[in-house]
């Protein structure tokens, strides 16, 4: 199958004016500036097939948003190339953006003063969406995301979760082939998050939409996508299925103990280094155990482990 998205050796550096504290330094800063180069994205490559959903994660400042900006054509890469659906996003912007939908969770694209429905109307003109498609999508989306209540309210009066749903609908009304979400679930309650997750999955299944999304919520990842790309400090450190990454951690077990004297303890063991038998023996020998439970490592924990760079198991392979 052909690749929908091809990213090869993309780099994006920011020049950051270095500022020292103090009045004297501030004045000096006016005349002479020291710059520092920040490698936000540093040689990242990957390909994505049509219809795939890819979760794009990494710690704060890893370069996720910067990458999404380059993919959606609003930033020029400093080096390397991006090719999406036959277009070079930053060069053929006007043609290219017809095919994509982008949601920046932290920034609204809606018109602050107008009711939500009018912002949607405007999208119809901007993307020249045929009336029947527009009505079908609008109807379906608002129902799925449960938005009938606030369609006619000015955007500035909406709550964060309502606004986010509005933003998502606005970005998808034209049935784009590719969608980028940058933190679509930021700041939402569990119910709203679940709605958005279902919606993203639904879009993917119904139209075979290719989707990339970034998030800090591992639940999002587990529930929505199969493939995961992790970047850190501008470099790709993992690219593969979630199952895969979990498999590598299956030998890591968390053992929760409740002791006779009421103390609770949590221990982590690696069964590939020490067999379970031996672990149990040691535990029972050393403690008066009242209750014991053995848990798999949670995805949250795995990810934290990777971010912290202490990758107990992955280190050898990555």
């Amino acid at each position, binding site marked *: 199958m052909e690749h929908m998205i091809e990213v090869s050796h993309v780099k994006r550096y920011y020049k950051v004016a270095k500022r020292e504290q103090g009045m004297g330094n501030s004045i000096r800063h006016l005349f002479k500036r020291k710059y520092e180069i920040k490698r936000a994205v540093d040689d990242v490559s990957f390909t994505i097939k049509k219809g795939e959903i890819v979760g794009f994660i990494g710690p704060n400042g890893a370069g996720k948003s910067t990458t999404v900006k380059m993919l*959606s054509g609003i930033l020029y890469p400093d080096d390397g190339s991006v090719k999406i659906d036959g277009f070079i996003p930053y060069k053929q912007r006007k043609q290219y953006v017809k095919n994509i939908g982008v949601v920046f969770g932290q*920034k609204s694209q809606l018109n602050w003063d*107008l009711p939500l429905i009018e912002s949607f109307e*405007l999208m119809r003109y901007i993307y020249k969406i045929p009336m029947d498609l527009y009505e079908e999508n609008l109807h379906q989306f608002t129902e799925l995301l449960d938005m009938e209540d606030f369609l006619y309210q000015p955007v500035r009066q909406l709550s964060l979760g309502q606004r986010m749903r509005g933003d998502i609908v606005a970005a998808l009304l034209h049935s784009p082939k590719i969608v980028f979400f940058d933190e679509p679930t930021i700041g939402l309650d569990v119910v709203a998050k679940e709605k958005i997750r279902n919606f993203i999955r639904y879009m993917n299944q119904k139209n075979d939409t290719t989707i990339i999304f970034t998030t800090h919520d591992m639940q999002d990842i587990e529930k929505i996508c199969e493939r995961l790309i992790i970047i850190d400090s501008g470099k790709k450190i993992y690219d593969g299925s979630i199952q895969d990454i979990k498999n590598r951690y299956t030998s890591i077990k968390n053992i929760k103990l409740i002791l006779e004297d009421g103390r609770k303890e949590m221990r982590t063991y690696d069964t590939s280094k020490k067999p379970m038998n031996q672990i149990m023996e040691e535990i029972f020998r050393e403690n008066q155990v009242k209750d014991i439970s053995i848990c798999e490592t949670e995805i949250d924990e795995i990810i934290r482990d990777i971010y912290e760079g202490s990758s107990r198991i992955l280190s050898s392979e990555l």
Partner: protein
Amino acid sequence: MRTYLEFALKKFQNKMVYRLDFFMGMINTLITIAVYLCIYKALYGNASVIDGVTYKMVATNFVIALGLSQAFTFNEMFMQDKIKDGSITNEFLKPVSFKLRMLSENIGEGLFKVVFHFFPALILTCLYTDICMPKSFANLVFMLLSMMLGYLVLWLISFIVQTWSFWLFSVWGIVTIKNVFINILSGSLLPLWFMPRPLKTMISCTPFESIYFTPVRIYLGQLSGMDIFKAMMIQCGWILVLYLTGNIFWKQGVKKLVVQGG
């Protein structure tokens, strides 16, 4: 085209949301007109003609220039705000031309001001002062045409200055200085008739004359026949020059754009 019309209409609607703004704007316009007409009246005293210009002409110049300047005011921090808070990304994510979109929104905004601030104030003004009627119907038509060209000249100057926000952290200062220049040199405060000759010659070599003064002169019939045509050609010339200049800044700016936030 339909898309851009929609932008203008939405902006117009947007403005209507703020009702207080509407009344205050109207009162503000009314007061401005009253104050300036009093000043001119005082300047004229008992004289009916100064330098071959009647009070009525000055009053007309002022009222028209004010109307135009209301139509011509728009949020000049538009681009800077969008660049600063990163929402310029939203514009780049849409399959529309940012420049045309900005222009149509600005027109929508100007139209709002003319309809809701200027027209009511104009009607009230006409009740207590008389101002010149257009020289002829043809003059009125040419004036409207020339007015649109004038709008483009003004808009493009603003556009150029606004594109500098790609490099500067704030263009507010520059915009303010630019507006002082425009107010003085375009004849919207003090009609260009009263400017000293050397200054007048100098101004005629700048785009400023093309903004308000050309339409006003056409309206009053000070230009006629070939002169109207010539004046409009000069306007078009400036539009071309300014457009090309603005485009260079724009292209360079977009290239170096650093989208903030996220």
